[in-house]
């Protein structure tokens, strides 16, 4: 069953350094398709670091790999992904008159995917 979380998309050092090589590089694609979760949330969903999940918002979905957060960075119920193709798929087209769709603090569901 899919569980609901709040997604924050943002920059990371590794995303910034790998895009200098290429946005088609393995490093960049891996960094922008990794979802970070509080380790207690990860355990509650029966997930292990490296498992694949489908993350979905009311506007779209993407398949990503989950990892446990470092140094207790994320509170429970909050997940993080580096800006990139996957985070863009979760944004809607409506900007509420500002020019920018919501990209941080959006409600998402996380559904474990079968291995392989």
């Amino acid at each position, binding site marked *: 069953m899919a569980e609901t979380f*709040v997604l*924050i998309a*943002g*920059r*990371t*050092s590794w995303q*910034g*350094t*790998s895009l*200098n*090589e*290429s*946005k*088609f590089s393995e490093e960049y694609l891996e960094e922008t398709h990794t979802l970070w979760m509080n380790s207690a949330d990860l355990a509650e969903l029966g997930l292990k670091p490296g498992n694949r999940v489908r993350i979905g918002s009311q*506007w*779209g979905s993407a398949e990503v790999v989950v990892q446990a957060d470092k*140094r*207790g*960075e*994320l*509170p429970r119920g*909050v997940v*993080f992904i580096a*800006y*990139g*193709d996957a*985070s*863009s*798929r979760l*944004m*809607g*087209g*409506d*900007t*509420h*008159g*500002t*020019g*920018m*769709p*919501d*990209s*941080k*603090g959006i409600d998402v569901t996380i559904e474990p995917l079968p291995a392989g």
Partner: protein
Amino acid sequence: MNATLTDTRIVENATCTFCGCVCDDMILKVQGGRIVEARNACVLGKAWFLNHHVEDRPVALIEGKPASLEEAVNRAAEILVAARYPVVYGLSDTTCEAQRIAVAIADWIGGCVDTTTSVCHGPSGMAFQGVGEVTCSLGEVKNRADLVVFWGCNPAESHPRHMTRYSTMPRGLFVPNGRKGRTVVLVDVRRTKTAPAADIFLQIKPRRDFEALWALRALIKGCSPGPTIEEETGISLAQLQDLAQRMKSCKFGVLFFGMGLSMTRGKHLNVEAALALARDLNQYTKFYIKPMRGHGNVTGADNVVSWQTGYPFGVNLARGYPRFNPGEYTTADLLARGEADAALIIASDPLANFSEPARKHLRRIPYIALDPKETPTTRHATVAFTTAVYGINVAGTVYRMDDVPIRLRPAIPSPYPSDEEVLRRLERRIRQLLGMGTQNT
């Protein structure tokens, strides 16, 4: 420049244009036509300089096939002149000189001109117009600030030298003890890599920035925000009272805010709350507020579009005079609503970072892309130009995030033309097609 492959040269005081810090104290070692050492650069700057290499791409592609510069300019001009509602977009990773010509092109073709500001601190731009910005330079922060608040930003990862060069670590004229003479506060949803560098970390609930900022405004005016504030924001009343007291009693305070405010629900209202807080504090002390700007010359884009049209982004020039309306003339909206029928995209990658409805429409319309590297946007472009890299190959002017203009010192030549040169040729060809003459503007 006559560098040969065996030359070793040192370029002093070069400028890194990767992020909005625009650090201009780089010492670059150039060997064999490559930058092999970048002293003073942060992790992002090192990747920026050391990964630079000459791309193995044609100077231009038309529908994916190699073309000459002239052929590509002709085709690009034809697309833009034939369009009924074109948009000129991007501009944050190029020089002010190129930005200026891009605005002229938008004017000639009667289109919209918009920059990547609209999808980062665009809402902040709207808030500046509503409230105003109590502003200062990073030099003033370095020399005077004894309270530094970071709100919804993570400089340790996105602006790695901000703290060491400008805001928290350096010894300043009136902060002779450097870091020991400053109190650093971080307010964020995540306990990011910036948290260990702060004296106080306040972990706020997602989407509750406005409530916390408004509570601080109340406390500063001597009012209580009510007993439910901790439940609403995740920050206790005692913590907010402590921060409010520190803000009122500091000698020189500054609040740096990031996209944690401008991209979360509430957007410009969140930023308005922060701007109003800084304004209120000036009844008690000196207090300033600055956005943490991302790309190397996004601040330059705001400045150039403002002095050319009167507005910073999201400008429509179709009637022969500028009109500003975020949500209507901003690129994310023009594309997502399926309105734009052609685009000129300069130094940005909307196919990587726009919403899916916007990306879908961009793939359907003819568009021109200028970029030093191959990106998702250049891959789908009707006409793609490979251009030289600003700051590494090309001289020009960029604006640091505090609106201070800085001149670039390029290190190595490029076989590709600059954005400015391509845009200048394109503008000239557009004027020819429109029967407007071809004198330089």
